[in-house]
């Protein structure tokens, strides 16, 4: 048998392996035998590191010597909602330095929630001979000067470098000047995707126009709010091959010549499938996109502060829509219309227009979501902000849509019960996990007892990510989840009465997960120390801006806790407000 396995030359095996792209499958291949491990590691081209502190750059480089594409994630998800203090970490610098030396042929860097500086960007722009793709998702720490370096070095005569993608998705960029765009050389023509929607400043418009005009393969262009509407038509005429467009501000004085120019330009874009942007919408200009609505598969109107009738007119024409993001201005009536027109809908996100107002400002209730669940048979992914919910509605939704894989419900007021029965929403969410057997992601809200967690532990066997806030009654709740959810990878909890018991009883489970976040719960420092000592392959980070946890009684709850598995040991870049516990039982300060 062994002889048979070795009878294939390495090149043949490598060729076979090249058809296997999925990380899990490649990991499985590498465990078959030593020779397969060796061939696999030399031929692995794409690496995904879900937590940049789970492993060190050197370890990755040692195992995979010839990587062309890397994806790294830094801060925990709750950093999106300002729960992670500034300076916590997620610095990409050590990765860039190591890769600049070890991977001269690196083509793609994708980062999420990481801190990247202008120096890092400059190093990237100069180090990789064939650099093609830079995606910075929810990153921070850099300015438009860093972008200028990327632009200036996007093309290299010495090497074969030709940048294809520059995507700044929702990153926080320090806007020093809009001139960075001028740094793209005049003979640079290989841009395929440009997303600058997050930039605040005005970019040099003439440079943008010229860039768009000379890149025939441009398929994605997401502009920022500062690009005025009357300039949009010219851009579109230079790039009629666009597949994805993000407009700038969608407002201008209503003028027939501007309108017809815009409408004509949109009509010329026969490949356009995705629209976003739509800041400051003047409803009178919406009909300019009507000609292309029937081809749209993605529509992001989550910045469009227009009212339901205008939204209905627009969305009603998008029969092929698969993904819709919208503000709650759409109202239940609008969602009824969506349910009737958009039969191919896979993903719906409804954001709140007035999240901090004490009273509902629009008639958007659980009914809208129920209608969608009835009308849209392909619905898989939901993010829904609303102010009232009932168990009955949740049960209806669950029975209608057992194919749901992502269900995130945010009832705006914490602890809101079923508005019809005033009961907790346990059975409603229980129905969701029971019927939706392939559910991968779930976010809870409303009034919830330990019972909902019992349902989750019992039924949510495919659940990978769970977000919990202001829910539960005791440690039993947390215990149900940790002991029942076999596929759980990420668990984030805030403001729940979960303490030490469930955590310590399920310590081994934590090594099977990527990470656990708990803030404003009842975990004590004593338990954290115990966990840190018992589990050497976990980093137990206590985040507390009130000063050293030793200055408070050991039974006092800590502020924030972030636990993640790692083979790299404690990290070296912890700020003063993060404490971690070593196995030698001494409390280690950063």
């Amino acid at each position, binding site marked *: 048998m062994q002889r048979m396995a070795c009878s294939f030359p390495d090149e043949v095996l490598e060729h076979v392996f090249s058809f296997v792209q999925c990380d899990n499958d490649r990991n499985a291949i590498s465990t078959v035998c030593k020779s397969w491990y060796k061939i696999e590691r030399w031929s692995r081209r794409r690496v995904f590191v879900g937590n940049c502190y789970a492993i060190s750059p050197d370890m990755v480089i040692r195992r995979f010597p010839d990587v062309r594409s890397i994806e790294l994630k830094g801060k925990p998800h*709750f950093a*999106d*909602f*300002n*729960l992670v203090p500034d300076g916590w970490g997620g610095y990409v610098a050590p990765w860039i330095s190591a890769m600049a030396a070890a991977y001269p042929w690196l083509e793609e860097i994708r980062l999420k929630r990481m801190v990247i500086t202008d120096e890092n960007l400059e190093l990237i722009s100069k180090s990789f001979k064939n650099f093609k793709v830079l995606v910075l998702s929810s990153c921070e720490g850099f300015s438009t000067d860093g972008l200028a370096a990327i632009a200036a070095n996007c093309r290299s005569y010495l090497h074969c470098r030709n940048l294809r993608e520059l995507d700044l998705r*929702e990153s926080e960029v320090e806007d020093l000047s809009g001139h960075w765009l001028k740094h793209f050389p005049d003979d640079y023509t290989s841009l395929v995707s440009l997303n600058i929607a*997050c930039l605040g400043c005005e970019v040099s418009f003439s440079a943008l126009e010229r860039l768009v005009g000379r890149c025939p393969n441009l398929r994605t262009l997401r502009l920022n*709010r500062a690009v*005025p509407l*009357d300039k949009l038509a010219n851009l579109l005429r230079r790039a009629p091959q666009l597949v994805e467009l993000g407009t700038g501000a969608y*407002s*201008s*004085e209503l003028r027939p010549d501007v309108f017809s120019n815009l409408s004509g330009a949109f009509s010329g874009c026969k490949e356009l499938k995705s629209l976003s942007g739509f*800041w*400051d919408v003047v409803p009178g200009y919406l009909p300019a996109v009507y000609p292309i609505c029937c081809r749209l598969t993605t529509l992001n109107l*989550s*910045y469009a*502060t227009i009212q339901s009738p205008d939204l209905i007119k627009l969305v009603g024409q998008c029969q092929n829509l698969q993904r819709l993001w919208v503000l709650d201005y759409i109202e239940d009536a609008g969602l009824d219309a969506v349910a009737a027109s958009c039969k191919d809908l896979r993903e719906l996100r409804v*954001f*709140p*227009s*007035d*999240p*901090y107002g*004490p009273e509902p400002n629009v008639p958007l209730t659980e009914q809208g979501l129920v209608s969608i669940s009835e009308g849209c048979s392909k619905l898989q992914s939901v993010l829904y*902000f609303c102010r009232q919910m009932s168990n009955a509605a949740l049960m209806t939704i669950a029975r209608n849509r057992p194919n749901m894989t992502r269900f995130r419900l*945010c009832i*705006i*007021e*914490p*602890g*809101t*019960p079923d508005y019809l029965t*005033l009961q*907790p929403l346990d059975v409603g969410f229980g129905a969701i996990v029971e019927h939706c057997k392939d559910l991968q992601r779930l*976010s809870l809200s409303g*009034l919830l007892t330990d019972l909902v967690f019992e349902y989750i532990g019992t039924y949510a066997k495919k659940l990978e990510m769970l*977000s919990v*806030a*202001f829910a539960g*009654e005791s440690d039993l709740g947390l215990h149900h989840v940790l002991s029942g959810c076999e596929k759980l990878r990420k668990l984030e909890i*805030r*403001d729940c*009465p979960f*303490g030490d018991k469930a955590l310590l009883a399920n310590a081994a489970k934590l090594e099977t997960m990527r990470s656990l976040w708990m803030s*404003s719960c*009842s975990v*004590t420092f004593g338990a954290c120390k115990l966990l840190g000592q018992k589990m050497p392959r976990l980093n137990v980070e206590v985040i507390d801006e009130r000063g050293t946890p030793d200055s*408070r*009684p050991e*039974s*006092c*709850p800590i*502020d924030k806790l972030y636990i993640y598995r790692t083979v790299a040991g404690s990290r070296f870049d912890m700020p003063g407000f993060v404490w971690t516990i070593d196995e030698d039982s001494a409390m280690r300060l950063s």
Partner: protein
Amino acid sequence: MESKVAYDNDLNLKATELRLGLPGTDDREEQTLFSARNNKRPLPDTSKECGSKKKSDAQHVDNETAPPTKAQIVGWPPIRSYRKNNLQPKKSDQAEVAGIYVKVSMDGAPYLRKIDLGIYQGYPELLKALESMFKFTIGEYSEREGYKGSEYAPTYEDKDGDWMLVGDVPWDMFMSSCKRLRIMKGSEARGLGCGV
């Protein structure tokens, strides 16, 4: 809603009831009841001892009988900050109530135009709009020398009937005092532009 219907149907004893409360306190009583049922979350004992006040404060506020000024909870509802920023309407309140339409005349043009000052965020935007509307270029503005580099100067008539150079006063002040706009051309413009 249901309770209000009930009151309509019965003898409206509530109105004639002798109570110690101030008139018009009915709603607040119901609100107290409802919010008490809302907040069944048990408080962990330790949070009180250690004085970590965030959660308990939020609950306490909800339980008050007076219309609650909600203590804003950090990171809740879970919305990214760039979304919150984008919800702020950029237009001034003034513009939302009624458009501030003013006539715009250009020396040499056959007819006048009208624009809504309220849709612009500041001078640069207004000037760009004027440039594109009348197909001309305005020069660079400086406090000392007005608009240099062009034979046009944008002016406006203020509340006192005087013709002023656009750009001297803060934008909001300009918006409230501008009655009409005139784009002056040629020698007339230059005379206005020079610091007199």
